């Protein structure tokens, strides 16, 4: 993977997949991961595989490698799990897979192990299966009762139903009972309280009726209710599990390793094993794994991920560096002063976790419905019980009617109303390259009227582009190309790319002066390309490099190139009538130029992380619902303050964690469409609530009047659940 390290610092559009990109996450996590690596189950991400032949080729190549015991490709996850001897390293395996023609990246096994088998999902699926089995059998018996079975036959059928229902409910309805109990213990009502009560009451009255050879039993209702509700839970869980595993794969791609000089030799170590005082070697293009002080070497640092500033900062021995900065030109040796949790990067990320976030302030539509619904249902059921008990004086009749009311009103359709819609909408967004991580993200996205963008790495790709090529005299172009080609610095690379059509001038004695630029001799006279101070010029406000030729000095200015889809996204958001703002930590010139280019009138430059969050809080105070799109560590506070947040896949881990939605491709254009999908999804959820209420309005009076038979209950429940699901499917 060493060949990747060269351009990671500049090209943040792709996935960061090199050891040097490791940005010191939590230390105890890392220790756990290191232990996993010893166990020698390696995981590779294989984004390019798609057919049976791919599976065969990769598996055969891997299992023939020395030391590999077993290799298994998972096509759904595009991953390979390899069991191997401890001495086999993931890099060897990556090379083998690349040798047979497939792209491969190492995955951190500790991070993905958590999602390898989805235990909670499996438990829900089992419960769903048992509930389905039991409800079908009981329904079969109930149909015979409804079609006229009487006397001993009816009693027998009811007893068999009871024998199936009781153990089935005891197993399947556990999640509802547990959740209802937990809510009641803290004296709250949630949606599960009426559900649990309805199921329990239905069972009690049905058993009582059966023992007295009564006519009506609600065993089938209790079971179908459980089945439909579990189906909703499972859909909900599946959507979130898929998003979570994809998000964790992004994290797992950044394997935290560092090159350390110990006892005179350079060794690769997991970041967790670093100690304070270690000499860490950071190659050009690599990211600082620790906080420290430069011991050797001089270079330039890209701090944009921390501050949003695009202009590189000079780095000299003795200077302090922070984890997360990218080394640009020369190799550096850094003496570690803080590692793991203690780095300023990790501390900043922690601050974000403490800050009150937009998502915790939001109450989901389902919760709001539950708040209205749960007390209403209980009061209604209690009133009908009291009314009937006072009027007829018969406890049995009154209890039966109360149970019927609870079953009819039980939020079966409500339980499906939200998950069915979010599953459909999240699936639709996922196909367009957006990963919805948080359950209420769609609802919050639907309310957005203000969109705030970060500049560096979000609207721009972090790749510089020459803006004043015309100022360069014709005879200087060849010189510039020859000098620029000799350096891996992002500005040099951009200049060389822009001048690719020229013929390089014949230079001699070409050398790179780390931290300054490149110099050479042209026909015996010195030519230089590099920093303004080095060439004796005064640095301006914009990102620029200077060229010194025998004929004089020329300034070559750069601007960040736009991320694909940025212009379309901004103009479409403006066309939708939303307010668009740009808040950046970068210098005023660069921000103003970009804002003018995209047609953004509301912009702010030189913003510190705290300023960004404060600005968003001020917008929210003015009544705006804010969507924040950002990628850097300096954005994380803003991302969590905003009502809803999006970050690109190339963002820092901390920023991705803080955001609700991750953009998987490098393209920003799906954002306006996502806002529309979200508002349509919210409309469907509201429609579903209305449909569910409509069925209740018809069936509840019947139940209260004592006219509701188990047949009517079953019909109302099934039709409302099916209508709600079909309505959600319209979103696809």
């Amino acid at each position, binding site marked *: 993977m060493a060949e990747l390290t060269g351009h990671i610092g500049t090209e943040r559009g792709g996935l960061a997949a090199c050891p040097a990109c490791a940005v010191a996450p939590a230390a105890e996590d890392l220790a756990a991961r290191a232990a996993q690596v010893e166990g020698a189950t390696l995981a590779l991400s294989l984004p390019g595989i798609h*057919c*049976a*032949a791919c*599976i065969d080729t990769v598996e055969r190549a891997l299992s023939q490698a020395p030391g590999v015991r077993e290799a298994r490709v998972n096509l*759904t996850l595009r991953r390979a799990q390899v069991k191997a001897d401890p001495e086999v390293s993931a890099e060897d395996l990556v090379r083998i897979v690349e040798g047979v023609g497939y792209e491969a990246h190492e995955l951190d096994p500790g991070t993905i192990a958590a999602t390898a088998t989805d235990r909670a999902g499996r438990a829900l699926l089992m419960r769903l*299966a048992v509930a389905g089995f039991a409800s079908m*059998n009981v329904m079969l018996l109930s149909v015979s009762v409804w079609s006229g079975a009487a006397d001993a*036959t009816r009693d027998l059928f009811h007893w068999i139903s009871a024998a199936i229902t009781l153990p089935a409910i005891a197993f399947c309805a556990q999640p509802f009972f547990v959740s209802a109990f937990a809510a009641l213990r803290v004296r709250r009502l949630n949606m599960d309280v009426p559900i649990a009560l309805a199921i329990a009451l239905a069972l009690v009255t049905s058993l009582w009726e059966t023992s007295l050879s009564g006519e009506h039993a609600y065993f089938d209702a209790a079971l179908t209710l459980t089945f439909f509700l579990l189906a909703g839970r499972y859909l909900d869980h599946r959507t979130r599990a898929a998003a979570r595993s994809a998000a964790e794969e992004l994290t797992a791609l950044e394997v935290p390793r560092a090159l350390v000089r110990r006892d005179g030799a350079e060794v690769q170590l997991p970041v967790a094993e670093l100690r304070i005082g270690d000499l860490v070697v950071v190659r050009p293009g690599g990211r600082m794994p620790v906080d420290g002080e430069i011991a050797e070497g001089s270079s330039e640092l890209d701090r944009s991920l921390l501050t949003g500033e695009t202009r590189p900062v000079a780095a000299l021995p003795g200077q302090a560096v922070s984890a997360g900065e990218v080394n640009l030109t020369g190799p550096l040796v850094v003496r570690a002063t803080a590692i793991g949790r203690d780095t300023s990067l990790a501390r900043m990320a922690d601050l974000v976790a403490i800050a009150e976030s937009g998502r915790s302030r939001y109450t989901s539509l389902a919760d709001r419905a539950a708040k209205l619904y749960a007390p209403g249902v209980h009061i209604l059921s209690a009133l009908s019980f009291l009314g009937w008990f006072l009027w007829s004086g018969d406890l049995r009749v009154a209890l039966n009617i109360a149970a019927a009311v609870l079953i009819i009103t039980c939020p079966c359709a409500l339980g499906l109303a939200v998950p069915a819609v979010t599953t459909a909408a999240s699936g639709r967004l996922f196909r367009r390259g957006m990963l919805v991580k948080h359950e209420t993200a769609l609802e919050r996205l639907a309310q957005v009227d203000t969109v705030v963008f970060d500049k560096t790495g979000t609207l721009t790709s972090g790749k510089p582009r020459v803006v004043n090529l015309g100022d360069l005299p014709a005879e200087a172009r060849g010189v510039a190309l020859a000098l620029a080609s000799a350096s891996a610095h992002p500005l040099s690379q951009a200049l060389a790319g822009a001048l690719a059509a020229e013929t390089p001038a014949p230079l001699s004695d070409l050398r790179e002066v780390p931290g300054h630029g490149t110099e050479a001799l042209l026909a015996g006279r010195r030519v230089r390309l590099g920093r303004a101070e080095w060439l004796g010029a005064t640095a301006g406000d914009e990102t620029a490099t200077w060229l010194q030729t025998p004929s004089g000095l020329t300034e070559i200015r750069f601007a960040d190139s736009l991320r694909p889809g940025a212009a379309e996204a901004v103009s479409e958001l403006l066309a939708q009538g939303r307010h668009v703002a740009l808040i950046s930590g970068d210098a005023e010139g660069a921000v103003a130029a970009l804002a003018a280019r995209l047609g953004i009138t509301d912009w702010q430059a030189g913003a510190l992380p705290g300023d960004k969050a404060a600005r968003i809080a001020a917008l929210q105070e003015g009544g705006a619902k804010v969507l924040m799109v950002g990628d850097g560590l300096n954005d994380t506070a803003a991302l969590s303050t905003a009502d809803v947040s999006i970050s690109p896949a190339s963002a820092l881990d901390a920023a991705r964690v803080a955001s609700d939605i991750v953009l998987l491709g490098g393209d920003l254009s799906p954002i306006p469409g996502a806002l529309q999908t979200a508002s349509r999804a919210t409309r469907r959820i509201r429609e579903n609530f209305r449909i569910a209420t409509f069925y209740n309005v018809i069936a509840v009076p019947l139940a209260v009047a004592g006219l509701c038979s188990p047949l009517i209950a079953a019909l109302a429940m099934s039709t409302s659940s099916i209508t709600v699901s079909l309505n959600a499917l319209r979103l696809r």
Partner: protein
Amino acid sequence: MDILVWLIPISLFLGGLGLVAFIWTVRSDQYEDPDGTSQRILSDQWDEHPKP
């Protein structure tokens, strides 16, 4: 109506058989890679089980 004595246990048993089979498929990781499973039938490689 005596036939019910036989039919009900039989129907419950058959349904239960299906349920047990489903639980077994979930327990033995058969839903871990639905895409891969559909592609692997085209492969001429043996899976780990019926080895020659």
